[in-house]
Structures are given as structure tokens and as C-alpha cells.
């Protein structure tokens, strides 16, 4: 873990409609670094799902993307309500999203499973009333 590049974002929790801009920016940055398109796609989709979750479920938070030689790490940290039952939340189709959020095309209950699908490792550290920290890793290989 010697040399690495960090991208840091404050994710605003107020605007559902324009949510996801940090992930779109990361995609652009990773492209400029000349990384493999499939890796970029996986990282940016996983981050987008997490970023949207921070906006729709947790009132915003902070996102960090660390690019190391062998892997990319995505850390999403919020001070939202926390996830009471992570196992349940991970199930495809489980969602507590509001009707408004659903009308925008979110709330399919597939976000966490997409994050797992597209990354090589995912850790969810969540405490009710404190917040949620999700750490994902995508290997360069």
C-alpha cells in the first residue's frame, strides 16, 4: 500500500434527482488514469448504488475511492439511521424506499446485492442510530 490516489467526495443528502454525481466523476477520473474499462464499470456501478443509498436512506455522507496498484477501495460512510438487519437488507427485493424514491426508478431492493456482485470484497459495518460504513474492494487483475 505505498503509492495511491485518493478521490474524496461529500455526498449531499438533499437532492435525490441529481444523486450519483460523485460516482459519475469517479468513472471519468478512472478513465483518465487509463484503467481497464470493465474494472471502471464495476467500481463505478458499485459506488453509485452505495452513493444513492447514502442519499435516499441516510441523508448523505462521505465517499472515498482509493486507487492502489493492485486494487481499488471504495469507502462510503454515513451518519444515517443504520441498518437493523444487514442479512435482510442484502436480500434482493428488500427495500424500505419511499414511493417518491421508487418513482425515480430506485428502490428495487437490488442495490446492496449489485454492490456485492460487482466487487471482490464488501464489508458492511452498521450500527442503528450511529451510521453505516461500507468498504468495497475491486481487484485490478
Amino acid at each position, binding site marked *: 500500500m505505498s503509492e495511491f490516489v485518493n478521490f474524496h467526495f461529500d455526498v449531499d443528502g438533499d437532492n435525490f434527482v441529481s444523486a450519483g454525481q460523485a460516482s459519475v466523476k469517479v468513472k471519468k477520473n478512472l478513465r483518465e488514469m487509463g484503467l481497464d474499462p470493465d474494472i471502471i464499470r464495476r467500481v463505478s*456501478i458499485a459506488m453509485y448504488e452505495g452513493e444513492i443509498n447514502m442519499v435516499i436512506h441516510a441523508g448523505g455522507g462521505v465517499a472515498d475511492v482509493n486507487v492502489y496498484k493492485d486494487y481499488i477501495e471504495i469507502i462510503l460512510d454515513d451518519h444515517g439511521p443504520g441498518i437493523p438487519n444487514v442479512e435482510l437488507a442484502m436480500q434482493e427485493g428488500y427495500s424500505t424506499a419511499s414511493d417518491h424514491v421508487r418513482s425515480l426508478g430506485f428502490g428495487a431492493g437490488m442495490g446492496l446485492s449489485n454492490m456485492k456482485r460487482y466487487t471482490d470484497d464488501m464489508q458492511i459495518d452498521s450500527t442503528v442510530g450511529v451510521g453505516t460504513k461500507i468498504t468495497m474492494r475491486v481487484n485490478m487483475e
Partner: protein
Amino acid sequence: MTVNQLATKYAFSVVTMPEGEKIVSGCYVGDLLSWVMGRAKAGNVWVTIMSNLNVVAVASLVDVSCVILAEGVTLDKEIVDMAVEKGVNILSSSKTAFETLKDIASEL
């Protein structure tokens, strides 16, 4: 076939065409964004009736070759501008998703 060629041959309305040389391959139909992100593949044509800003973000993240808005769905100018900025091609059709795809399926 490129997005440009597809639009011309099947007379789609062009909403945006910033990267018309992208190659179309396969298709995904859907309006729920997480399904699109989980199931659509890079290069796919994405047929949807959603019309908010998130469509542009998802199209860009998934690397679809183009979005086709079915049922005559239109976009606000702000969204069109964002699509151009992000290099997202968007076509539109007054037909249903099924009728739209019936026409172009053999090209995908």
C-alpha cells in the same frame, strides 16, 4: 452496426448523439435502475420509459451504446444537456418498447 446507423436506418428521433460511432450489441429493457445496473451489459441498447436525470448517470455507468426512450417519452433540456456532456446517446420512438425492439432486434 453503430448507433448512428441504427438511428438513420430505423428513423428514430435523435435526442442526443455525442458518440454516434458506438457499436450496438444486445438489448436490455427496464425502468428500475438497479435492475439495469445489475443485468444490462456494456454495449447494450437500453429501452426505457424513465425520463429523469438518473437515466443519464446509469446509462453512462453501465456503458450502454444508447438509450431508446419508448412511448414518445421526452426529456427536459437540463437532462439533454447532461447527456451530451456525459457522452450518452439518446434516441426516441413513439412506439411501445415491444414494437421498437421488434423492428431492430435483428441488428442487435
